[in-house]
């Protein structure tokens, strides 16, 4: 969505235009839901938070500033709602079993072998993401999945750009280490099974 279109949509949203809402919803709903799902690791929670995020947008629509940037606005609200949820429920950070309910997704690959390989890698990344600390996970998700630039992601998290860069760098390094360990443990298990 280019900036001109976004400004036009904000103006129409301020007037309560449902078609403008649909355009924003269609553009951002999947990204927002993916962010919330990977952050919360629970589909029911992610759906509740998603609904509340969109409701906040429409309830606040008339008071949106004309130069509002919609994606960072929505991700900020979504993140705040998730933080409130965690605070209220004291969510355990280690429960990752629900993650596998994310599967299957519709992905088209050129061959069954490539599909299996890609799917295995994606599963490993999902597992690693799920076991990362929430602060590392959220910066990775905002930039890589949410498509926000680093400055916007820093605003969403309420930290400086430099702090975000450091957090992102640590998150990437942690993800690489986790994937590496995952591969090594798989190789170890295979070594025990295969003579």
């Amino acid at each position: 969505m280019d900036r001109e279109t976004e400004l036009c949509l904000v103006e129409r949203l301020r007037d309560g235009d449902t078609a403008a809402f649909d355009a924003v919803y269609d553009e951002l709903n999947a990204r927002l839901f993916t962010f919330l799902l990977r952050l919360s690791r629970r589909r029911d929670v992610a759906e509740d938070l998603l609904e509340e995020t969109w409701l906040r947008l429409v309830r606040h629509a008339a008071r949106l500033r004309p130069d509002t940037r919609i994606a960072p606005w929505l991700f900020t609200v979504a993140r705040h709602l998730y933080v409130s949820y965690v605070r209220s429920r004291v969510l355990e950070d280690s429960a990752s079993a629900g993650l596998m309910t994310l599967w299957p997704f519709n992905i088209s690959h050129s061959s069954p072998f490539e599909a299996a390989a890609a799917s295995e890698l994606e599963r490993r990344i999902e597992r690693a993401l799920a076991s990362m600390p929430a602060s590392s996970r959220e910066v990775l998700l905002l930039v890589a999945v949410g498509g926000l630039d680093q400055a916007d992601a820093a605003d969403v998290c309420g930290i400086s750009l430099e702090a975000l860069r450091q957090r992102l760098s640590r998150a990437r390094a942690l993800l690489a280490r986790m994937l590496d360990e995952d591969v090594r443990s798989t190789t170890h298990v295979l070594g025990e099974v295969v003579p």
Partner: protein
Amino acid sequence: MTDRLSQLVGHLPHAEPRRARADRIRSRCHEVLERRHRQAAASRPVRRIWEPVVAGLGGLYLLAAIVLALEMYGVL
């Protein structure tokens, strides 16, 4: 390595909420927008009348205060 990892994370498939839930979210949001739009449209004529009245009364009050002050200082 780390940049490639970011790309891989970015290329993970997007998830979608269940269809029924997505439709419910959309319709609830439409309801809110339409209600606000109706309320805004209904309050527009009232605001068109009241805003000049309030501004006029404010102006009269200010004028009276100025006249009173000038009388107190003997200018008028």
